[in-house]
């Protein structure tokens, strides 16, 4: 009762001054909201898969405006859905790879990875021929004048796009999932940054934005996909999407085209005339950490 007494005294406030005060506060609130409207909308945004077409269109409009302002050029953020009757597979020829890391940087350029702190989706491991595929003694930081280095071979690793992905199962909020074309994607806006997926992934393929990602405006690739290479924010997890923005347009991933020795192959596993099917049917193929039953769609092979 005492609260009512002190805060609200009908005797002292007449109708007119009440309305005046109300108008003043609501316009202040409206003003504040104008500046941060986008931020509030973003904060209230639901997970991508539950959004209506209209909501998605609005979000895309907001993002394109935001990026255009930030990077000083027109951006497109696609939400292109999987092409029907496609299920992607990737193959990498271990007998060809020379460890030149051209794929690593082609990926950074195409997919707008942070330059500082540095973040790479592809990691090229150097291994000794004597030891075979051996992760314990593999070297990520090799630095030779020339490659391939005598007695060594190279195993580039990125997301294996597993058919049975432990990362997807581990995400407590459902911010990552497999689309019907087999690409494992992340909704950066729904990711809470708990990094459960990183702990679950046996390939170290997921990377966390510990710092605010930096992407020089002149290096930004403005052709993006919502679930792929659009600029990321601090505190979210990211990884290879097989260049979702390219492959859903029929193009090859950037690393496939960048590899000087042609070690990287990509295609539709459902198409029996595809390059990827030819490899599976005719070459010696292996998958990494087979015993874990993650069932990667990323196949390593020996063409010779």
């Amino acid at each position: 009762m005492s609260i009512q007494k002190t805060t609200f005294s009908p005797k002292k406030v007449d109708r007119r001054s009440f309305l005046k005060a109300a108008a003043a506060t609501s316009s202040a609130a409206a003003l504040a909201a104008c500046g941060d409207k986008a931020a509030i909308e973003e904060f209230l945004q639901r997970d991508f898969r539950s959004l209506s077409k209209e909501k998605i269109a609005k979000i895309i409009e907001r993002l394109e405006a935001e990026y255009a302002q930030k990077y000083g050029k027109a951006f497109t953020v696609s939400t292109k859905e999987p092409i029907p009757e496609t299920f992607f597979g990737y193959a990498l020829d271990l007998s060809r790879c020379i460890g030149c890391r051209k794929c690593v940087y082609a990926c950074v350029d195409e997919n707008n990875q942070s330059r500082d702190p540095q973040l790479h989706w592809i990691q090229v491991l150097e291994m000794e021929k004597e030891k075979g595929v051996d992760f314990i003694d593999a070297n990520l930081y090799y630095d030779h004048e020339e490659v391939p280095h005598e007695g060594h071979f190279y195993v580039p690793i990125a997301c294996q796009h597993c058919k049975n992905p432990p990362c997807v199962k581990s995400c407590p909020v459902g911010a990552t999932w497999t689309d019907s074309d087999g690409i494992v994607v992340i909704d950066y806006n729904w990711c809470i940054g708990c990094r459960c997926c990183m702990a679950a992934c046996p390939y170290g393929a997921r990377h966390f934005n510990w710092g605010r990602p930096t992407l020089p405006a002149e290096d930004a690739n403005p052709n993006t996909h919502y679930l792929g290479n659009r600029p990321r924010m601090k505190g979210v997890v990211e990884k290879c999407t097989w260049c979702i923005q390219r492959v859903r347009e029929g193009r090859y991933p950037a690393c496939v085209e960048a590899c000087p020795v042609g070690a990287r192959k990509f295609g539709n596993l459902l198409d029996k005339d595809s390059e990827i099917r030819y490899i599976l049917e005719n070459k010696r193929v292996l998958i990494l950490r087979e015993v874990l039953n993650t069932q990667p769609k990323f196949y390593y092979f020996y063409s010779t």
Partner: protein
Amino acid sequence: MNKFWFKPGLIVLFFVLILFSSLLVIGQQTADKDKMQIQVPPPPLNEDTFPCSMCHGDMETNPERRELVDFHENIVLKHDEENRWCMACHDDKNRDMLHSASGELIDFSESYKLCGQCHGPKLKDWEAGIHGRRTGQWNGEKKYLLCAHCHNPHSPKFPHLKPEPAPIKPGKKK
């Protein structure tokens, strides 16, 4: 019974069948041939040295294995060099062409046919899109390269490259 074999209708049918099956075989062959017509960019020929007939047109061919001094001294043959010399692949009558082991002329734009004589499995992989760099569309038109775009035919081992920079170790600044 004998009369049965001389029925004209049957004889006509027999010939029609033969004709039909031979047509099928021919059709198959052209289909295979079409598959061989792989679209490739022009061969990596040097304007200073091609067409070869610019100089070799009215020059006597010297098939002797020797050290090249005045011309082509930059060519180092490291490709089964014990058994081969220029004329093993280049044609000595038609200087702007290559030739197969059986003497069939091969244009530079189809040099993969020459390479494929020894490297059969590689040619097969290349045709299937497995060997070599592929660009274009995974579900449409693919761009191929000729063997010679990546391999120097005189010294075909893929050259060593300087690798791109190693990633920064965690905790280290740029």
